């Protein structure tokens, strides 16, 4: 039997079902951790925070992996509709809520209730969640996520009070996936994914894009996602 025959059901199907299996395990794992956590009195061991962080990260990476693969195969389309920016921020805060309740990081949101944007809300909140997750890891005590209008764009901004982005993540060309820095585990995949999804959001001849710098009002890293 040749090797090609073994793959006759197709790599996309194998990838999709693997992701599916891992996600199921991940869900069960989180449920188990949750049950363990209930046994402990406050203050709970900080390891729970780390566990929550890692599972969030695994989950986000898996989603991004699958999505990027589908984009590559042209088997992906955005599901664009009008969404309230406040709802998207609320989704992000909800995803981070367990992590927040365990740590000493303050997550602040700023957004006008009447601000609407046209986007694939599941993709955008997934992309932003990864970045907020990272910001929480690298900040000292504060992360601000905000949404506002700038010219003809809706801008989602994530700022923290940490040390700021390393040099390699501030390149203007996020389309290049940078060399994996094994020492820090910093791959830039989250930024690459967000840039890719942003690019797919189009109005007339305007595309979405991202900007990273260290001009946070709190002195740390600042990330901005522009959607037309």
């Amino acid at each position, binding site marked *: 039997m040749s090797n090609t025959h073994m793959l006759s059901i197709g790599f996309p199907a194998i990838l*999709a079902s693997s*992701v*599916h299996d891992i*996600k*199921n395990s*991940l*869900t*069960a794992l*989180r*449920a*188990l951790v*949750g*049950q363990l956590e*209930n046994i402990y009195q406050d203050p709970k061991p900080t390891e729970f925070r780390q566990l929550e962080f890692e*599972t969030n990260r695994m*989950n986000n990476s898996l*989603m991004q992996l*699958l*999505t990027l693969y*589908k984009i590559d195969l*042209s*088997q*992906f*389309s*955005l*599901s*664009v*509709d*009008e969404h*309230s920016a406040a*709802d998207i921020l*609320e*989704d992000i*805060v*909800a*995803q981070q*809520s*367990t992590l927040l309740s365990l740590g000493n990081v303050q997550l602040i949101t700023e957004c006008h209730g*009447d601000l*609407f944007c*046209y986007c694939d809300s*599941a*993709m955008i909140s*997934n992309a932003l969640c990864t970045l907020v997750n990272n910001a929480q890891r690298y900040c000292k005590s504060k992360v601000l996520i905000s949404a506002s209008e700038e010219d003809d764009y809706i801008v989602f901004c994530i700022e923290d009070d940490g040390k700021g982005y390393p040099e390699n993540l501030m390149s203007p060309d996020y389309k290049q996936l940078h060399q994996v820095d094994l020492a820090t585990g910093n791959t830039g995949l989250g930024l690459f994914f967000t840039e890719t999804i942003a690019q797919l959001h189009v*109005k007339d001849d305007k595309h979405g894009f991202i900007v990273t710098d260290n001009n946070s009002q709190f002195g740390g890293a600042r990330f901005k996602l522009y959607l037309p």
Partner: protein
Amino acid sequence: MAINLASKKILVVEDQAIMRETIKHILGSFGARFIVEAESGINAITAMRIDKFDIVLCDYNLLRGKNGQQVLEEARHLKLLPVNAIFIMVTCEQSLEMVLSAIDNKPDDYLIKPFNRLQLLNRIERCYSRKTYLTSVENEIDSGNLYKAIYNCEKLLQLDDKKMRMQLLKMYAELALKVGNFKKAEETYQDILHERELPWARLGLGVVAFFLGYYDQAIKTFQDLIEQYPMMLEAYDWLVKTHESMGNDEHAVSSLNSAVTLSPMSILRQKKLALLADKTENLPVAKKAYTATIKLGKNSIHRSSADYAGLANVYLKSNAANEALKILYELNQQFHNDPEAKLRASLLEAEIHQTKGNSALAEQAYGKTVKLNEQFNKQISRELRLEMAKAFYLNGDNETCDEILNDLVRTNIDDKSFIKDIVTLCDAIIGESYAESLIQHIKKELVDINNKGVSLFQEGNIKGALTVFEQAIAKMPSNQTVLLNLIKIIIHDLKTSKTNPEKIISAQAYINKAVQIGIPHNQIGGLQAELDTIQNKSNQ
């Protein structure tokens, strides 16, 4: 908005015990008291038969038996879910939403695993507040009062709630399409597209073009959408429909084939593909699609003996008579007490034995068919009755064949595509002019009934006219002309005599029926307006 879960009946459908436990724990921490768990689709259906739930959280991937989508379809089909209940599908993957959309029933929302307590609560709250906001519209849709639903939609739009605006506009346009008010639908979609290029609004314009008969324009719209959004299956479904309406079945098969490749789990698409491929003699595709349909049907309300018969017939056509017999055996095994299934099986059995040259067995099977037909003819589907007519004719029983065809033409005279099927069959086996003269004859009969009713009405004999049309509608429940005349007379009666709430209800029911069978807005809209005026007066 904080939703009070204490007063809500909640069903959690999930095969993993640990997940059920966690979800229950979360719901409990938000005050929920009435929580029922089901670890399989069948148990979920049983639970919904016993209790009317306000909230159903259902996992898509249930290990054994029905999946979440099949649970949803069955619950809606059996009307186990109250109109205002929310059904949230829990899935592992975002893209599932698209793959399942369109042809299938949609849940109220999706929730992607894994989720924490706040994510779950947020989803329920948002879904709940949207549902509550739209209650006045959804209740009317549920009872078939589409015009009232449109009116309520307009009222909500006037409140100008920005968060709900798009949702309302989408519903509004869809309702306008449903009652055949294409102008209103087109205006609404154009307005939205003027603000922003949204795929569903663009699709809506294509649908309007389809209904107005601008097929080329519709096709272009759907093809452009597919190119831009390769996973937009609704665009495929409409493209297929348009090709079909143009009589271009081969194109329809090829578009549908692409859609099925993208969504192999959608039983209705597989079924449709099987039928279309069968019709165009594309036997390999038909075989594959029937087989898939049968497999997917095992846990679905869309399971049908017709799929087995279809597959057996494809085998027969591909000179594999023994394979065909095997499928028939399976058919008989799967559908014990189903007369339609028995009829299909014996009908095909006769044909198979005939093909194999075994005339004694063929005769025996035909005898069984005749007997079953006597018992059940009126209860079986029209497609099967048409096949029965063919079998009777081929076996020399012209009288029974005539009888069935007469009845089929009479009850379906307004259904162009089914009448076309009848004509095609008659032309092929009986002769060119047969169907034509049958149709003329029935049309004349109808004209006579209408004339009789109308002249009674003109003589002032309202009661007599009503009787004529009511009798006619009992015999031909989907006849558009009769139905329209009946409604007109009831409304006239209401206008000229004392108001009678019962008559208003009956008129509304007939109008709803008219909308449902596709009488267009330009014929029914005015009557609805008149009835509304009468009703408003009687309420004063």
